[in-house]
């Protein structure tokens, strides 16, 4: 008896060690109809991890609207596919690589880029752009700077080498990201619709082919590592972080796209999280087929890998193809040219079992659907955190007035979140492929499409601080801002992808934040009529019980019918008229001003009227289409004063403005609220701009004129401040070169 007891305890330790709960193990027994052997248990444990199975988020994600007449492929495949006319489609997705970047910033970020890249060309699309959204602790410690510097270098290191431009992004700094930075990478691709290929193992008798890098021990159980809170132990998990080889990645893109174009493959699946296990079980489960593979055929980087290691390794730059036997020679020819290994592992079978042999012996035999889709969907407990009401009760207008508004502007311009991120993006090649019409530093990136003569705009946005104060509102704002930025460039938003970065969903307060943020995002998507076509959830962003701000990040993609129509954020010509579009309502609650000037994250942020947001975006696109304005800039962090300063700096010209009478100067200058933008235009267009705005039912106020070499703001006949371009440039531009020296 004691011996048997011992044996059972040992086994219990095995599945718990692999991150499975007792209840989940019971489910596996039931679905499999027997006890899994250790190899099978490893397969289940990686696929039933939070990262792969979305077990805490699946039921909530159903709230997202995912359809529109343009959507060809929504969530569930490697990336979303949206029809952009002329027989072409845009393919895009965003994904997190937070945990790996926390312990190994360069490789963590680099493989994040490599991973999202594979998701795009796996669908058969040519990747054309990267975007990213990053969060760090303030760069005032060596550790914070090390993570920031390493992540930026890793993103550049991979993206530059594969020759896909990194065209836009955002970086924010808050103490809550100290132990757990956020690294969200997005990729956009384009393809002829007829080239679309899915991750499905179709056709009994077809070959299962593995291509690309050899398999090693890197990234073992990376998905399990990503599905736990970070701790002191995490440093020891460094081997769970994969190592990227962008050169191999570049060859794999070229070879895969050539194979897709020549119609040599019927199914493609990249090997990312959970490695070969995921690729085998997902392709079989999507197609409703079975697979038989011989594991000893997998080319290895080192001798002696055990079957479970080969099955769960997350070695990068690998692809799985499903190939009709007669096309194998042509496929081999392509991979030979690019000097890449290509190996037939097995074939597609009838039935629904994935059978894995190793030197002739069956080491695993599992139902594909059970491993890939059998994990439980939890409905976690949800509870409003106590801080919400407490922080909302704070009224920023009770704070003492600003003594020197000009100095306040310079202080805000030189704060970490607002200051120019040129130090970051000058490390990214944002021009390669010569399609970048608008690169980093604008509201949205704009990329011309040689194939159709049109252009795509893309932006990525999220505000953790506001989502922390009001998750429902923060969710709505993320969708509104990303799509507004796309509309600012003149493009019509056609879809979004989301990266949801939250704490431990097993804690009711963290789950409440998640649930409310998703509800807000879903509501915004419905009103703005923009579908969610894919995304990623990253839970367990906690260190020692301290969670990050709930941080939903939205990547929006828009279609611009005429590439030349886009306009930039900088004022262009002296004497042009400057107007403010959008509603009046702003707040200092949760604002950058409050954070920088008073060191507080509190208060009620300005709410959003989604119907008005929609009208403003229609107006912005109308102004671009009619070529009525010379510049457009979204009002975001830092409010009106910062947006004006940025338009001056980007255009290298000053401006003189007269604000309507102010009740509260700081609120008027630095208050933040959604659905607003500043435009500059030639005087002769003013009437048409006013009438177009009236047709759209959007408020417009004429504020002043472009000109001179300073930003000068007057109010009620008094000069509020006059700050020189040179001073602003110094405040805005020299922060990061100095900090990161």
């Amino acid at each position, binding site marked *: 008896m004691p011996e048997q007891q011992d044996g059972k305890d040992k086994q219990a330790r095995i599945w718990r060690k692999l991150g499975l709960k007792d209840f989940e193990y019971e489910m596996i027994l039931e679905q499999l109809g027997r006890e899994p052997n250790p190899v099978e248990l490893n397969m289940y444990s990686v696929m039933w991890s939070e990262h792969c199975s979305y077990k805490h988020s699946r039921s909530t994600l159903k709230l997202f609207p995912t359809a529109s007449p343009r959507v060809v492929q929504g969530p569930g495949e490697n990336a979303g596919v949206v029809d952009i006319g002329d027989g072409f489609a845009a393919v895009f997705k965003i994904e997190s690589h937070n945990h790996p970047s926390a312990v190994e910033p360069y490789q963590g970020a680099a493989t994040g880029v490599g991973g999202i890249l594979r998701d795009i060309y796996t669908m058969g699309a040519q990747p054309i752009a990267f975007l990213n959204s990053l969060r760090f602790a303030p760069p005032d410690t060596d550790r914070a700077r090390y993570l920031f510097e390493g992540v930026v270098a890793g993103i550049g290191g991979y993206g*530059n080498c594969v020759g896909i431009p990194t065209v836009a992004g955002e970086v924010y700094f808050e103490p809550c990201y100290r132990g757990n930075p956020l690294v969200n990478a997005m990729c956009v691709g384009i393809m002829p619709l007829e080239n679309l290929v899915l991750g499905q193992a179709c056709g009994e008798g077809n070959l299962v082919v593995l291509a690309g890098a050899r398999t090693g021990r890197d990234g073992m159980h990376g998905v399990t590592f990503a599905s736990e809170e970070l701790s002191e132990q995490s440093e020891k998990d460094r081997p769970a972080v994969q190592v990227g*080889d962008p050169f191999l990645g*570049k060859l794999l893109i070229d070879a895969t796209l050539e194979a897709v174009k020549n119609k040599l493959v019927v199914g493609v699946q990249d090997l990312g999280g959970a490695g070969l296990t995921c690729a085998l079980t997902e392709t079989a489960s999507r197609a409703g087929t079975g697979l038989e593979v011989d594991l000893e055929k997998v080319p290895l980087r080192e001798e002696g890998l055990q079957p479970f290691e080969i099955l769960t390794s997350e070695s990068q730059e690998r692809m799985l193809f499903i190939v009709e036997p007669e096309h194998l020679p042509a496929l081999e020819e392509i991979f030979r*040219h690019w000097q890449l290994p290509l190996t037939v592992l097995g074939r597609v079978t009838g039935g629904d079992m994935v059978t894995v042999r190793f030197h002739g012996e069956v080491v695993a035999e599992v139902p594909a659907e059970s491993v890939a889709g059998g994990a439980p969907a939890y409905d976690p407990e949800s509870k409003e955190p106590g801080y919400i009401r407490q922080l909302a009760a704070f009224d920023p207008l009770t704070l003492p007035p600003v003594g020197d508004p000009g100095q306040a502007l310079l202080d805000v311009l030189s704060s970490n979140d607002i200051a120019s991120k040129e130090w970051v993006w000058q490390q990214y090649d944002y021009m390669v492929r*010569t399609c970048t*019409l608008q690169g980093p530093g604008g509201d949205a990136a704009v990329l011309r499409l040689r194939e159709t003569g049109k252009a795509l705009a893309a932006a990525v946005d999220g505000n953790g601080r506001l989502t922390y104060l009001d998750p429902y509102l923060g969710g709505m704002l993320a969708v509104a801002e990303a799509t507004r930025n796309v509309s600012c460039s003149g493009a019509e938003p056609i879809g979004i992808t989301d990266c949801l970065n939250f704490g431990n969903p097993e804690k009711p307060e963290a789950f409440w934040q998640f649930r409310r943020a998703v509800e807000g995002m879903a509501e915004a998507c419905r009103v703005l009529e923009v579908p969610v076509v894919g995304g990623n959830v990253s839970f367990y962003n906690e260190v020692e019980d301290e969670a990050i701000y709930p941080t939903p990040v939205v990547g929006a993609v828009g279609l611009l019918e005429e590439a030349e129509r886009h306009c930039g954020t900088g004022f262009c010509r002296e004497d042009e008229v400057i107007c403010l579009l959008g509603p009046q309502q702003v707040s200092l609650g949760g604002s950058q001003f409050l954070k920088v000037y008073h060191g507080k994250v509190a208060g009620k942020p300005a709410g959003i009227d989604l119907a008005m947001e929609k009208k403003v975006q229609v107006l912005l696109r109308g102004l671009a289409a009619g070529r009525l304005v010379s510049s457009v800039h979204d009002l975001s962090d830092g409010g009106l004063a910062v947006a004006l300063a940025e338009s001056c700096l980007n255009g290298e010209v000053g401006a003189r403005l007269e604000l309507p009478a102010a009740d509260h100067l700081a609120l008027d200058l630095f208050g933040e609220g959604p659905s607003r933008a500043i435009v500059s235009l030639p005087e002769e267009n003013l009437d048409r701009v006013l009438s177009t705005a009236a047709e759209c039912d959007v408020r417009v106020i004429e504020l002043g004129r472009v000109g001179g070499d300073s930003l000068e703001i007057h109010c009620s006949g008094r000069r509020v401040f006059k700050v020189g371009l040179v001073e602003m440039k110094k405040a805005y531009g020299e922060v990061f070169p100095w900090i990161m020296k």
Partner: protein
Amino acid sequence: MKFGVIVFPGSNCDLDAYYLVRDVLREEVEYVGYDQNNLTGFDVIILPGGFTYGDYLRSGALASRTQVMEAVAGFADTGGLVLGICNGFQVLTEAGLLPGALCRNDSLQFRCRQVYVRVENSSLPVTKRTAEGKVLKMPVAHGDGSFYAPPDLLQELENRGQVVFRYVDEAGLATVDANPNGSSDNIAGIANRRGNVVGLMPHPERAGEKALGSTDGLVLFESLIGFCRGREVPDNA
């Protein structure tokens, strides 16, 4: 008049050069694989930017040993025009077709930004249509672009007119701030003695359309085309 664009494993500005020649200059252009050994029929060979063989070992080192580079050397020997851009420049120095070496940027970081270069020698096939002292705006995007040569070689390059482009500010002055990578004497591009092989770190092929920020790079290609067509090009501009 036919351009060839070499495609090494890891080249990634091959399509930028290709589309510029085809769509902007409207000349004939073909890709040439790294495993080819015949360049008959081409007038100009472009070695494009990128990260050939991942820049492993040293930037351009592995690509310089590919089969096609033997053909490029033969092509240059017979007076063919060769233009190496960015990684292509690195490949040419590694192949010994151009002197000197390209080292890590002094910032130790990759740099992508617009720079200005001054034409130092306008008598070459690649600069014939511009003029000495002319300032051109074009982008750089590289991590290993710091040109190095020992002092006696630098002097020799200078004396023989092999320094073709120099990093300058907008006003044409070769200042420290204008130098994006710490290159010796602000050197951005050089030629071989004969003047038919030229390498430069900035990207003229990315400065060929107004929508991309500059058209100043076009003159290099127009010069090459003019030279090949055998037209007398007056030193104007």
